[in-house]
């Protein structure tokens, strides 16, 4: 059995039920709906009228160049930000009324890794397991370390790890509470080929476990073949969506060229 075939790959296996938490009932849902969402920071418009749907058992990719609004979109879905207008629904729930219950069902791997460098990998994982109300944090941390392939380095401080190793610990931190919705911001950053392949397997395992996965990246080669749906963003606007996208790089080039031409025309018209 490879480390990526661990039981943690199947977070919503009916036989296992929901993870044990001491935080009370957590929200469960099988669909994320972003409905005409805009977000402004002062006078700057970071996102404008974005709508899409992400389903359980599928990976949705947010694709676009730097500054397209991918990270802002993830922060909105993660409930860290509130939309200026529009709605984000988790099944039938809104973020406002179910804050803590929703956060218990969301796992986020940010561009920054959310790890304490002075603590060991095990201490980091046990700390976050405790925050998520996992009753046996020690076992959960041990299992997460095994899944990350770092069981023998678990007691080393995170500051002594390479970027790729930190990324693997951070991914397991984000998944330690077996979230229904997994949000990943540039998850391939700093990974070598083996780690990238392992992450791909891990994501496929989560998909098989019916998790809703939203992945923001500008690394099209690595996202190739992984996505069930792609949402293309540019300058905070949604410019294209595609189901089961193939030949991502060619599609991306085509979409962005058309967007450039259109914006050129609109500027000329304006």
């Amino acid at each position, binding site marked *: 059995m490879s480390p990526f075939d661990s039981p943690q790959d199947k977070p919503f296996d009916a036989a296992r039920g929901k993870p044990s938490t001491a935080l009370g009932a957590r929200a469960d849902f099988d669909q994320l709906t972003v409905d005409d969402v805009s977000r402004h920071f002062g006078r700057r418009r970071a996102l404008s009228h974005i709508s899409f749907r992400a389903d359980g058992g599928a990976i949705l990719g947010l694709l676009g160049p730097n500054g397209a609004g991918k990270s802002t979109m993830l922060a909105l879905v993660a409930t860290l930000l509130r939309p200026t207008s529009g709605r984000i629904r988790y099944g039938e729930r809104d973020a406002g009324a179910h804050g803590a219950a929703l956060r218990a069902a969301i796992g986020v791997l*940010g561009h920054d890794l959310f790890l304490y460098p002075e603590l060991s990998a095990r201490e980091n994982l046990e700390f976050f397991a405790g925050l998520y109300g996992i009753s046996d944090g020690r076992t959960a941390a041990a299992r997460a370390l095994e899944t990350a392939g770092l069981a023998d380095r678990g007691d080393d401080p995170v500051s002594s790890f390479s970027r790729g190793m930190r990324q693997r610990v951070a991914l397991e931190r984000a998944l330690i509470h077996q979230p229904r919705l997994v949000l990943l911001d540039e998850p391939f950053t700093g990974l070598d080929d083996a780690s990238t392949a392992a992450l791909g397997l891990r994501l496929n395992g989560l998909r098989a476990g019916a998790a809703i996965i939203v992945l923001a990246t500008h690394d099209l080669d690595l996202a190739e073949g992984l996505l069930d749906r792609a949402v293309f963003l540019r300058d905070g606007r949604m410019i294209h969506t595609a189901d089961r996208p193939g030949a991502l790089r060619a599609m991306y080039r085509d979409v962005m060229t058309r967007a450039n031409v259109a914006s050129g025309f609109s500027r000329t018209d304006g």
Partner: protein
Amino acid sequence: MFAHIVWLVLRKDFTVEVRSLEIAYTTLFFAISCVLVFAFALVQEGRAPVGGAAGILWIAVAFAGTLALGRTFERERQAETLRALLLAPAARPAVYLGKLLGIVALLTAAEIVLVPLVALLFQASLLAHPVWLALILLTGTVGFAAVGTLFAAMLIRARSRDVLLPVLLYPITVPVIIAGVRATGVLLEPELDVGLLQVWLALLVCFDVVFVTLALWTFEPLMTE
């Protein structure tokens, strides 16, 4: 569960600090330097100004506290771990309380060094009533840190947070500092006026209750965006 989250955050901060000792060393070095500078300036021919020790002690605590507050949250900002704390389903007031207790513990450790140093350099009988002094320092430190922890968390994304923190913190905590200085001054009198001391202590407890309650109430909405 609330208490468990408080304990987790406090234990995490303690472990991180024990590993690095960064904040403890800088805070202590700064506080001791502050006391020494005042001692060189104010103690003339071996005679310290009457009642000066109380003021010097609280100035050192306030300055060291500001430094500790800034550094504690700077640590959470560097790896964006405050975001991770806010993303967890744990009660956010519990996260606040854990951070507050960590700051109070750090300042208490600094005060354990500062009190004998001030008493020695300013020939003040600070240690004549250790229980009263401990109560004054604890209530004063909690009041100061309660506001400071809230502001430091709020300012974590502000570009000029190092400037803004003292600008916002000192005007609001002036009543706590004044009450702390006055109460400590009472301890330095030849005759201990217990009634007056109780008045200042009651005032400090009132400030603590108000500040901690307001901070617990406002931490969640303030940290949402």
